[in-house]
């Protein structure tokens, strides 16, 4: 299988107002395979969101190459759907109009737009709220609407930036199950940024652990648990074992990152 998303020595430097600069991302090299679900986890300042935004085409790398579908990234594209932590729904549009937004830009006919939008509104369980404005929706419902909106334009890649970060713990677990359910039915390549270790392990084929100052790859940990992921898996010993390993990688990072080990790991799994 070929790499769908390829970070090749991708770096990003940000300039401060006082002229000093800081390295948000230092030579990240990771391949994400087609249909894979990878999560990026790490302490704040590890560059995980920066990496995602570079893949989305919202930030340009200052070094290295960002390759998606075999081509260098030049700005955002409809083949890459992005889900933001703050939902980013257009508050003046109804759920349906939000979901249709990308389809309208894509030049789809009204009847076609409506059919596609309805399908994804149903898929995320918002049929009863299709004609409501975002202000009446709960946080979880807003994020489901954002997911439907991203899915509607039929991207082959989903980039999710702490999408459940603002939700309460219970809603979060429900959203994780729904996301996996949607993903199993509408298979996409997913890159998912989170700071929640449990979430990272529960969702992913592979967990990419990053380190901070400068933001860089620390370790890639495979999650050899079957899908569909269930509560039984979440509470299993095998899950706990992987979770503990990721936890230690995130919270007890050694001074020297096991970069080489990470690379070996990657080759080993795929």
């Amino acid at each position: 299988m070929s790499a769908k998303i390829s970070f090749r020595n991708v770096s990003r430097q940000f300039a401060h107002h006082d002229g000093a600069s800081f390295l948000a991302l230092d030579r990240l090299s990771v391949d994400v395979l087609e249909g894979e679900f990878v999560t990026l986890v790490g302490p704040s300042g590890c560059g995980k969101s920066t990496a995602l935004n570079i893949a989305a085409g919202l930030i340009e790398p200052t070094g290295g190459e960002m390759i998606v579908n075999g081509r260098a990234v030049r700005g955002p594209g409809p083949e890459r759907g992005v889900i933001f932590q703050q939902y980013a729904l257009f508050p003046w549009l109804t759920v349906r109009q939000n979901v249709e937004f990308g389809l309208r830009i894509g030049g789809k006919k009204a009847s076609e737009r409506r059919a596609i939008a309805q399908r994804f509104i149903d898929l995320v369980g918002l049929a009863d709220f299709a004609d409501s404005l975002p202000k009446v929706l709960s946080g979880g419902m807003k994020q489901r609407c954002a997911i439907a909106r991203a899915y509607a334009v039929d991207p082959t890649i989903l980039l999710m930036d702490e999408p459940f970060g603002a939700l309460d713990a219970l809603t979060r677990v429900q959203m994780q199950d729904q996301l996996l359910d949607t993903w199993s039915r509408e298979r996409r390549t997913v890159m998912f940024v989170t700071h929640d270790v449990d979430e990272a392990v529960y969702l992913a084929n592979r967990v990419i652990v990053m380190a901070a100052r400068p933001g860089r790859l620390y370790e890639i940990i495979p999650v050899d648990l079957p899908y569909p992921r269930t509560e039984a898996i979440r509470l299993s010993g095998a899950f706990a074992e992987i979770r503990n390993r990721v936890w230690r990688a995130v919270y007890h990072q050694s001074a020297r990152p096991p970069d080489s080990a990470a690379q070996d790991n990657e080759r080993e799994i795929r």
Partner: protein
Amino acid sequence: MSDSAEAPATSATARPWGGRRQLLLNVVAICGGIALWGAAVSFRRVGLPSPEQVAARAIELIRSGQLFADLLASLGRVLAGFALGVTLAIPVGFLMGWYPIARGLIEPFVQFFRMIPPLAVIPLAIVTMGIGETPKVFVIFLAVFLSSVIATFQGVIGVDKTLINAARVLGAKDATIFRRVIIPASTPFILVGMRIGLGSAWATVVAAELIAAQSGLGFRMQQAELYYDLATIFVSLITIGILGLAMDRLLLALETRLTQWQERM
């Protein structure tokens, strides 16, 4: 002074009247204010006209058609200046918010002229534009333009960057982002600017008419002053207040309608 004469000044910040009880309280307060005014005039024998005298004069002026003619003259100037000001302010505000170059070029002028009360421009306007309608409309235009342009500009630069990014990742290019994100997102700001602009337009027209006009509510007051005709002055003031309030409510209704999507605290 009566309550209603002060209405235009406070109406810009007034909250929409909600509920029947609130409305009842408002009516009670207005009646109370008029009663107080009547009592003050009859007890202390101050040199002000009583509510009855003012009402009588109002009927007189309405019957003769003079009040309506004055009102029309003032309203015409306000609407002309307001329309011109808003029509120019919205594109200029968008330009300033969207293109940093336009902002750099325009902002110094806007900020500078904002510091000059529009009324201070009247002498210059009369000297250069004559004593016709032009200088008065121009001064109102200036007042409306300056308040609306700042509001529009603030609205555009205040648009949530995440919304712009959300549109971009859905395939929107600049023109689409402008039309489908920037314009709707900044509408609430523009409407607030329009309301403030209308308030200052109304304030400016009366003052302009006091200084130089042959018609309008301000002119009528200035004439009445010469003859110590306080009742006519009162009628004019109350008319100005009611009209200003009515226009503000109209804009508020429009604002509520167009921005009902906003999450209100």
